[in-house]
């Protein structure tokens, strides 16, 4: 295959983004817009579907053992298994979000901006996965951030959305400045920015300038950590996740924070030996887990609860990665990669299901009221499909079989116990207890939805269009199928695990 072809994965969304915007702007002057299908949505859907073509081609090439890499002058773009995993996550969730938003965003002003930004964000995230130059990584990362600012503050007439947008912007801008400082330190001491070259010379220059490389690592951890929502840096997340439009919430929680994590791993892989920072990774993991779960227990707003649960899931993933770096265990690495994917499915499903309810109960009635947990009472009476899929999502997040989350957590556990290290095992037991604790807020949700007396909000709810239920059905089925046959993802998670361990030279 022509080496350049895989770059269409991000080129198509990026190029379609302005096209969608222009189509939307021109469409506004069309007086007959009401009766006709909206050009913007169709274009957006076509663009995401078109993106699958280069993606599948890239996967086929990858599986045939060929390397996917391409140089634009001196900057390389390399798609390894991790990039492909991230791209798969972005694409699957992105496609479903576009379908979901078909009706959901139909009445919003600035719909064309929504789709244009969504597509741009998707393209930038897929590109972020392929970046293999430290500064280029930052540019992708910053682009992703800029494209998500508007999406978070999309309901700009809502004061709370603006507030969330402000926090999100300032905190991620602070993080990105710290990343730049780190890049400057790396550049000053090594004279190179190519991740692979840095990794090869890493041992030498890291020992020559040990403290500097550590300082750069610290700056990377914190800088990218803001986006990846490590615990003391997470404060923007609950606000942004609860205020953005539902589809974006799913993207933020399902892919954006994971993209931050992957960017962090890539940057760190270039400059330091994992031994130096695995403890930091594990402590952030433990902190994220316990903080996310405990605070989620007290939430009364569904979206905030789900946002905090994202924190704890990032914690599980961090533990998986930390353990794999600790002992070079492939099981934990694969578990972490698998959990990235299953978390995307489950959290995407949970946020979309919550969004469906918001649409039916509030948006359709012209209100932007927050969906309270107590509003869920009796959902199954009127929206059986939504109730079932939200139940599947949260039970999967809680790690109950036969759902996908159980399987990915199990893989992380296998990795942890295989180290036969007392501390790691204690940490794994702690993770298992946390998982039990998380049932303390997931299980009542399910219970509430199957109550016989519906809440007032449910009674006033409007029917749901099929474009909203379709993504739910699809994701719910994926969660169940992966729970019964977790091996279906091995083709990608196993190479991704190898790539992760390869990044750190283990």
């Amino acid at each position, binding site marked *: 295959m022509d080496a350049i072809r895989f770059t269409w994965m991000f080129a198509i969304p990026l190029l379609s983004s302005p096209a969608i915007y222009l189509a939307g702007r021109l469409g506004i002057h069309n007086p007959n817009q009401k009766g006709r299908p909206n050009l913007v949505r169709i274009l957006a859907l076509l663009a995401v579907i078109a993106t699958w073509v280069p993606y599948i081609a890239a996967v086929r090439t990858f599986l045939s053992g060929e390397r996917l890499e391409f140089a634009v002058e001196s900057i390389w773009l390399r798609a390894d298994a991790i990039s492909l995993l991230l791209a798969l996550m972005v694409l699957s969730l992105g496609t479903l979000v576009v379908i979901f938003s078909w009706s959901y965003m139909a009445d919003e002003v600035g719909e064309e901006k929504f789709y244009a930004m969504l597509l741009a964000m998707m393209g930038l995230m897929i590109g972020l996965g392929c970046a293999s130059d430290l500064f280029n990584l930052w540019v992708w990362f910053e682009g992703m951030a800029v494209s998500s600012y508007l999406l978070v503050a999309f309901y700009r007439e809502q004061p709370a959305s603006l507030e969330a947008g402000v926090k999100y912007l300032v905190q991620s801008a602070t993080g990105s400045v710290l990343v730049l400082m780190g890049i400057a330190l790396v550049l000053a001491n090594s004279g190179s920015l190519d991740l692979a070259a840095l990794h090869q010379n890493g041992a030498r220059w890291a020992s020559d300038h040990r403290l500097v490389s550590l300082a750069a690592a*610290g700056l990377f951890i914190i800088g990218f950590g803001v986006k990846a929502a490590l615990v003391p840096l997470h404060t923007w997340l609950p606000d942004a996740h609860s205020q953005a439009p539902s589809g974006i919430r799913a993207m933020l929680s399902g892919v954006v924070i994971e993209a931050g994590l992957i960017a962090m791993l890539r940057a760190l892989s270039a400059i330091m030996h994992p031994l130096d920072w695995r403890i930091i990774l594990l402590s952030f993991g433990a902190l994220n887990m316990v903080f996310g779960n405990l605070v989620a227990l007290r939430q009364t707003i569904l979206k905030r609860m789900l946002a905090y649960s994202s924190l704890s899931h990032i914690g599980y993933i961090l533990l998986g990665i930390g353990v794999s770096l600790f002992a070079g265990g492939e099981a934990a690495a694969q578990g972490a990669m698998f959990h990235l994917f299953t978390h995307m499915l489950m959290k995407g499903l949970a946020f979309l299901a919550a969004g469906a309810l918001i649409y039916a109960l509030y948006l359709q009635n012209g209100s932007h009221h927050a969906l309270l947990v107590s509003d869920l009472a009796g959902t199954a009476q009127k929206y059986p499909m939504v109730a079932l899929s939200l139940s599947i999502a949260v039970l999967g997040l809680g790690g109950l079989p036969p759902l996908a989350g159980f399987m990915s957590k199990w893989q992380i556990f296998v990795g942890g*116990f295989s180290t036969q290290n007392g501390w790691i095992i204690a940490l794994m037991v702690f993770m298992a207890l946390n998982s039990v604790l998380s049932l303390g807020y997931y299980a009542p949700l399910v219970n509430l939805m199957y109550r016989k007396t519906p809440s007032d909000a449910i009674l006033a709810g409007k029917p749901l269009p099929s474009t909203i239920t379709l993504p739910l059905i699809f994701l719910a089925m994926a969660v169940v199928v992966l729970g019964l046959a977790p091996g279906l993802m091995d083709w990608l998670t196993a190479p991704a695990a190898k790539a992760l361990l390869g990044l750190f030279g283990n």
Partner: protein
Amino acid sequence: MAGTLSVLLIGLPWLGALLVWLSGDARPKILHILAVGTSVSAGLLSLILLAFAGSQPAVNFKFGGWFGDFTLVADGLGATLAAVACVVGSLAVIYSVDYMQGEAQLRRYYAFILLFIGAMTGLVLSGNLFFTFFFWEITALCSYALISYYNDDPKAVSGGMKALIITQVGGVGLLAGALAAFSNLGSFQIADLLKGATSIPAGLLAFIAYGFLLAAAAKSAQFPFHTWLPDAMEAPTPVSALIHAATMVNAGVYLLARFYPAFAQVPGWTLAVTLVGMLSALTAGLMALTATDLKRALAYSTVSQLGYMVYAIGVGGVFASQFHLLNHAVFKALLFLSAGAVIHSVGTRDMRKMGGLGSKMPFIRNVFIIGALALAGVPIFNGFWSKEFILEAGLKQGPVWAFGFMLFGAGLTAFYTIRMTWLVFYGQPREQLHVHDSGLAMKISTGLLATGALTTWLLAGPLSGLMSGSLPYHAIEPISTINLVMDVLTGAGTWLALIILLVGAGLWVVVQRSPNPIPQAHWFTELMGTFHEELVSSSFGFEWLNQQVVAAVKKSAAVLQKTQTGELNWNILGIIIALLAVLVMLFWGV
């Protein structure tokens, strides 16, 4: 053949669950037919499976990844328990046709019962620790969903949560044990663990052994996790009979029995098991003594009887424990189902409001008494033989003090059983209750179970033969039914136990002779009342402990929640503090 049957035993109920869920709530008749059809056919197949039991994996399917091979082993232990689950399950489903008539959201009920039956079979047949855990968690999920079935009732909701959290905390023990075993053996196969136990380092083996004990104690509601089972009685009665008396709570006993050969050498493990069993038998017996809620009284007695089984394993009587497990499943299901018939008829669970119901529901009274006699351990009924067999084992191989306490427990059992029966069926009616006789489906299932309570002890011979033949690591001696009967009848423990039992029964007669035993003032009721309030209602203080744990978690959550100030400057401070912390950690090379 065994392979096909094993797969069908899991698949058939699950298929039923799926179909039930898909057919919706609109036509309850279809739901009844589907549920009864799939569960009864699973029950029949499970009986056929007994004929094909063997120690080799009946199914071996490469599952891949980090999960090991999916194996199903229909050996004596697994096949027997699978049969118990499927047969009692089908009877409970038949019973539900009457009991759940006209309930809303019936499909949720049937779907979870069928899901449970399949998962329980999978749990006992699985030859792979991962899948044991997999099914273990599904049973917990089903138990939660069914306890909270009446989810408009806050008591049912909190009872379900409690059961879920406690059994899941126990499940962490199973998870940790299974993974620790894997980390050493590189295999999830149970057979490999039993075979390779001696090669595992002592410390690790002890970790696994105690992890499994934790899991078993939580699942079987044993001391100190016994607090969840009484609260689980908010479930519909067939669920209590099936899940919280006959099957799921046995999973803990099953786990201990399954791995007994591997862990018997771990220092202190058998003693710990003995102690857990003994303490559960005693504390639950004492709690049953004063309970006023019929279902809670039965739940306490379940904990107590499970304590006997755990005790039996602790003293090395694996077969005795499984024999009692079988008998207990039959007579306790019988007791629950007939109690359910009473409750369904009179509309209350409070025994103080019942009384004199025997003349109005003669059939139910008769079968209940059969169950009660079996529970009390009166000769001829199945509970007698197995309990005495356990006591024999305890006298021969266990510590004498434990045996003494268990004897005392036998007396307690007799006492509370008679009290329960009397309060419900005899004496003067204490309140005007509208009573109607039970339906046909109820009579069929209780009648079948009553026959079982009279006869299952005859299966002792075949059962021991099956187990000794298919459990290569357990060293179970085959014993014919006649020999078992002779053993029991000539054992010293039996006669001691019978004397204690008579004392217990006699004590009840003395108590109830006095003019007005219940509920007005009487020295005994007063004493019991105080005892009940001070200790029993709090499960000997463990209820308090549970609440403390919950309160501590809530407190820390509230404190952490305060850190989310929502003010941008504080958020930035969080980032900078994290930066400082990371730099410091890196600087000092942590």
